[in-house]
């Protein structure tokens, strides 16, 4: 995220933050500083993303409850498994991706959340499970260069992405199977509601058609670099990354048709010694104020619809859970990937090597 783009909005952000915190403090007034003297560890993906969560989720909560929240990171699934396995759990609240969340939930790596404390009615039910509460939604969209393509003739759906005649140039896709398999099937005409279980051979045959014109990205920063530099004229990329690039002057635009949506969850590793405080923090994050604050900082979409009224108007078009996109986007099936990632990945890697 560029520093300057935030500085110009600093006043709006600060007052919003203060507003949210006061509201919360007023409500929690009878339980004044109820976690005074306690401390927990919050773990997320590091960098600007975690800084944003610290500001939006942790700081106002600390202020209101006296809870000291230490930051650690980045989220490391192997570390989390080892902690829970060895019974030495030093992480209390962790931001994890959907496929891992579903798998680890099944393997009993998390505490079951206490929904008498966490008000799950605030969150879209599709983003809540027994052990995880969705805190943000992001999407992989079709983004394209506005220098190469005009406003009335640009790639819009994944079938256009496959059309090398109408839209020439290199394309960019995610180097891992999840979401890339989905867009290949959408391009081949599979209806969004018939997508799962994924037809892997069909997706790979579809990818064969354009595989010599694809650049593959492994990390989000790389995806941004490839599109901004013009090495590819269009690509599948995280919505927030396109926002960031455009703020920095890149000539890019994105389509919301058939964008693949995925969720990050907050979980409590099994064996945490601070379950009460961790649960209260997760409940706080389901409120509109912290969610809106994080969206304002990092352009990751809220899971609480109420948050939209607190999000700066110019950001709303960039957010994956914007109600206007509800019938365009496709929610990735975390349960499918939980059960099939291993097998699909082996076929995927084999295909890549051919």
């Amino acid at each position, binding site marked *: 995220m560029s520093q300057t783009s935030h500085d110009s909005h600093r006043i709006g952000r600060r007052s919003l933050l203060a507003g949210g915190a006061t509201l919360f403090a007023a409500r929690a007034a009878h339980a004044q500083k109820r976690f005074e003297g306690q401390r927990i560890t919050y773990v997320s993906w590091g960098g600007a993303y975690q800084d944003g969560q610290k500001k939006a989720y942790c700081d106002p909560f600390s202020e209101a409850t006296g809870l000291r929240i230490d930051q650690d990171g980045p989220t490391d699934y192997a570390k989390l498994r080892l902690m829970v396995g060895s019974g030495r759990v030093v992480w209390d609240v962790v931001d994890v991706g959907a496929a891992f969340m579903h798998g680890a939930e099944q393997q009993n790596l998390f505490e079951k959340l206490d929904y008498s404390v966490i008000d799950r009615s605030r969150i879209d039910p599709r983003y809540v499970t027994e052990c995880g509460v969705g805190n943000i939604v992001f999407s992989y969209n079709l983004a394209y260069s506005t220098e190469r393509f005009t406003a009335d003739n640009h790639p819009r759906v994944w079938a256009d992405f496959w059309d090398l005649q109408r839209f020439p140039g290199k394309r960019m896709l995610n180097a891992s199977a999840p979401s890339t398999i989905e867009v290949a099937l959408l391009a081949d005409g599979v209806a969004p509601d018939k997508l799962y279980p994924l037809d892997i051979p069909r997706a790979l045959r579809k990818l064969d058609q354009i595989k010599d014109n694809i650049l593959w990205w*492994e990390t989000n920063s790389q995806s941004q670099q490839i599109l901004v530099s013009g090495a590819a004229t269009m690509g599948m990329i995280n919505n927030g990354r396109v926002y960031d690039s455009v703020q920095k002057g890149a000539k890019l635009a994105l389509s919301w048709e058939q964008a693949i949506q995925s969720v990050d969850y907050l979980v409590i590793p099994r064996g945490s010694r601070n379950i009460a405080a961790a649960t209260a923090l997760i409940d706080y994050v389901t409120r509109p104020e912290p969610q809106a604050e994080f969206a304002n900082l990092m352009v990751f979409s809220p899971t609480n619809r109420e948050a939209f009224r607190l999000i700066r108007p110019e950001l709303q078009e960039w957010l994956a859970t914007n109600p206007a996109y509800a019938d365009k986007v496709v929610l990735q099936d975390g349960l499918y990937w939980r059960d099939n990632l291993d097998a699909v990945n082996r076929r995927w890697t084999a295909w890549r090597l051919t």
Partner: protein
Amino acid sequence: MAVVFALPVGALLMRSASDPVWGLQNFRSLWEEPVYASLIRNTVQISLATTIGCILLAYPFAHVMATQPRLTRLLTLVVLIPFWSSILVRSFAWMVLLQNNGIINESLLWLGVIGQPLELIFNRTGVLIGMVHVLLPFVVFPLYGSIRAMDPALMPAAACLGAGPVRAFLRVQLPLTLPGLATGAVLVFVMALGFFITPALLGGRRDAVIARMIQLQVSQLGDWGMAATLSLVLLVATLLLLGASQLLVRSPARRVAE
């Protein structure tokens, strides 16, 4: 050494036969899934090519470093400064340099050397450029040591006895510096086997390596058994190659010494 190194490594490798249950299921899938063999072949190819690239570049470099005292300090810095920066930063820097509209292609196009941008990145070329760059110091320094340790009178002596420069190099300098060269080459090869960030960022579809698969098994899938199996294969392959290189290096070096 045995406690802090061998024990944990042993415990991890044990998991190849014990995780998720005792048995040979991990080795069976290693055998039955052709993708693992392809990944190992890819890894060995990339590591070998990187090693050769490092040797070809490092030898003249170390030679100048060892024989031109005035340039020694500058050349040492040239190798070391990139060595201290993060591998991620260096990969991104290569992307900027090597892409189709990057500095290298733009300059060559402007000079009229090429008519079409060269495909320097997102393929094997990119992987090798990136990996040679990262691993070069590991050959340069042992070689530098070997060349410095050589008696400076030997090459003029060979010339006096009628050996041309090529012959003097091949019969005198090369055998004498072979131990340093071999040390560097083995270091580079072994380290290259475990690389996955550079191939991932600078490579293309076909440049997948085994270490990336191991990382995925551990971090995403939590499949320690399969990760341990792949690590065991990598370890055994490394030990075999190390043994073979020891045999190869010893004989000619000894011949000159005796």
